[in-house]
C-alpha cells in the first residue's frame, strides 16, 4: 500500500437550501487503503459519497482524484478515471440481463467494443462476484444478496482504483454479510482502495484499516478503528448521553 492519497476532499461543503448537509469535510484515501465511513442515519455519509462521485455538486471545497481536480466533472468522467461506486439501494438496469448490466461499464469505461470480448470479460467479472450462473437472468429474478453482488460486479467491471461501497450489506443475513465482506477483501488485495459505508459495526471493524465518522455533516473522528470507537464524541453520537 502506498501512502500517497489517491482520493481527497478539501473543505467540502454541501447545502440543500438553508440546511448544511456537509460542513468543510477534509478527507484522504491512500492507494489501496480500506476505510470505513460511519455515522448515524442522516449524518451526511451518502451526501459525501454523492459529492465524491459526481451525483451532487458541492457549494464549496474541492475533490481530487489521482491528483486531478474532479470537483466539476460529471459522474461518467469520474467513473472513467477509475472512481466507482455501488448504491445504498441496488440500482440494476432492469431492462438488461445480468451479463448486459456488466457489459455497460465494460463498454463505456474500459472501452471494449468487440461483442465477443465484452461477453467474455463480463462473464469473468460475474465469476469473480459469484453470479456467473445468473448471467442470462433478469435482475428482477435476483435475491437481495445477488443484487448487492451485481452492484459490486458492475463497479468492478469499470476497473476502478477506488471503490465506494454504500451500505453494500444492508438488509443481509450474517452469512451474506460475510460473503460480501470476503468479496470486498478480495478486491482490495488487487490494489483497489475501498471506502465502506456501513452500519454493521462488526463488518466495519473487521474490514477497515481506518475509520472516519461523520455526524450532522461534520467529520468528528478519523483514525485507527479501535481508537475511533473509544472517542467520546463518537460514543455520544451513537449511544447518546
Amino acid at each position: 500500500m502506498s501512502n500517497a492519497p489517491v482520493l481527497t476532499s478539501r473543505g467540502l461543503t454541501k447545502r440543500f437550501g438553508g440546511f448544511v448537509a456537509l460542513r468543510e469535510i477534509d478527507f484522504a484515501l491512500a492507494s489501496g487503503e480500506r476505510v470505513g465511513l460511519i455515522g448515524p442515519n442522516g449524518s451526511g455519509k451518502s451526501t459525501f459519497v454523492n459529492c465524491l462521485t459526481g451525483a451532487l455538486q458541492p457549494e464549496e471545497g474541492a475533490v481530487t482524484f489521482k491528483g486531478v481536480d474532479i470537483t466539476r466533472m460529471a459522474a461518467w468522467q469520474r467513473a472513467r478515471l477509475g472512481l466507482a461506486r455501488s448504491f445504498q439501494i441496488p440500482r440494476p438496469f432492469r431492462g438488461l440481463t445480468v451479463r448486459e448490466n456488466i457489459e455497460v461499464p465494460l463498454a463505456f469505461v474500459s472501452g471494449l467494443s468487440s461483442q465477443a470480448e465484452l461477453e467474455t470479460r463480463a462473464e469473468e467479472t460475474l465469476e469473480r462476484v459469484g453470479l456467473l450462473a445468473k448471467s442470462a437472468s433478469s435482475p428482477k429474478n435476483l435475491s437481495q444478496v445477488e443484487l448487492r453482488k451485481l452492484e459490486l460486479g458492475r463497479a468492478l467491471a469499470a476497473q476502478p482504483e477506488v471503490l465506494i461501497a454504500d451500505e453494500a450489506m444492508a438488509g443481509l443475513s450474517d452469512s451474506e454479510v460475510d460473503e460480501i465482506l470476503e468479496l470486498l477483501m478480495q478486491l482490495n488485495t488487487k490494489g483497489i482502495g475501498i471506502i465502506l459505508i456501513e452500519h454493521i459495526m462488526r463488518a466495519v471493524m473487521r474490514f477497515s484499516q481506518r475509520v472516519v465518522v461523520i455526524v450532522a455533516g461534520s467529520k468528528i473522528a478519523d483514525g485507527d478503528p479501535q481508537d475511533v470507537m473509544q472517542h467520546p464524541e463518537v460514543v455520544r453520537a451513537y449511544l447518546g448521553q
Partner: protein
Amino acid sequence: MTSPSITASGAKARASSSLGFPLILLICVVSSAVLYFGLSQLDSSYAFLAAYTVLQFVALATAWNILGGYAGYVNFGVAAFFATGVYTSVIIYKTVQWPLLVTIPVAAAAAGLLGLGMGYLTLRLRGVFFSIATLALAVVLNTIVVNWSFVGGSRGVYVMRPQEIILFSSYERYLFVVMLVLAIGSVLIARTIENSWLGRGLAALKDDEMAAECAGVPSLRMKLIATTISGALLGAAGAPFPFFVTYVDPPTAFSLSIAVNAIAMPLIGGTATWLGPVIGALLLGTFQQIATVTISSALNLLIVGVVLVIFITVAPNGIIGFVKDLREKRR
C-alpha cells in the same frame, strides 16, 4: 482463467450475433421481393399506396422507438420531425427540383439537426417535462409553416409527380419501393443500435440515469445521439410524403394521426426491441387500411385508441413483452 462454460456460452452468443445481420438482410430482401410481386399481381395502384402507408408507419414507429423506447424519452413531437421532412421536400421541389432520392438525405439531415437542437434545448429535462417540450416544438413549427407562404402557408401546396420514372411502370410503385427501403433501413439501423454499445447505454439510461452515469455512460451525449438519429429517420420518412399525397397543408403534415400512430405502434408491439414497432405498425397499419376500405378512414384513430387502451391494460410491455412473460411462466 476462463472456465469452459464461459468459453462455450460466449462462443455460442458470438456465433448467433455474427449470423444475425446477413440473415436479417436476406429475410428483408426476400420478403420485399415477395411483397412487391404479390402486390403487382393485384394490378391495383391502391394496393401499393396502402402498403406505402403501412411501411411509412413501420419507419415512423421504428424511428420514434430509438428515442422513446430505447432511451425512455417520450417524444410527443413526432409530427414536427415528419413535417420537417415533408417541407424540406416541398422547398427542394419548389427551388432546385432535385430527385426524390437526393431529397431524402437532405430531409433526414434537416430533421436530424432539428433533433440535435431539441436535444440541446431539453438537455436537463426528463419524463413528462421532456414530452411537453417536444409537443411545444411541434406547435411552434406548425405556427411557422402556417405563416410561411413560400411553402403554401395555411392554404397548402400542390406537388406534381414526375410523369415518368425509370425502371417503374408507375410512380405509386416507385414510392412504395422507396418507402420499403426507408422502412427496412430504419429497422436495420434500430437493430444495429440495439445490439451495440449505444443500445446498452440507452437501455441503462432509460432504467436509471444516475446509475448509468456512474457506470461511465455519458447520458447527455447519448441523449443527443438518440434525438439526432431518431429525428433524422422521422424526417426521412416524411420526405416522399408530398409526392404521395400531391397536396400538402399543415393539418396533413402535422397530423394527429401521424403522432399518435408513431407512439402507439411501438407501445402495442413492445418498445424493448426493434421487432416491437415493426409488429405494432404492421398489425395496426394493416388493420387501419382494411377499416378504411371496408368501413371508414374516420375510424382509424378510434381503432388506435381502443387497441392502445386494451394493450396498456392487458399487456403493458406490448406483444413482445407479453410473449416473453408467457414463455418465462412456462419454464
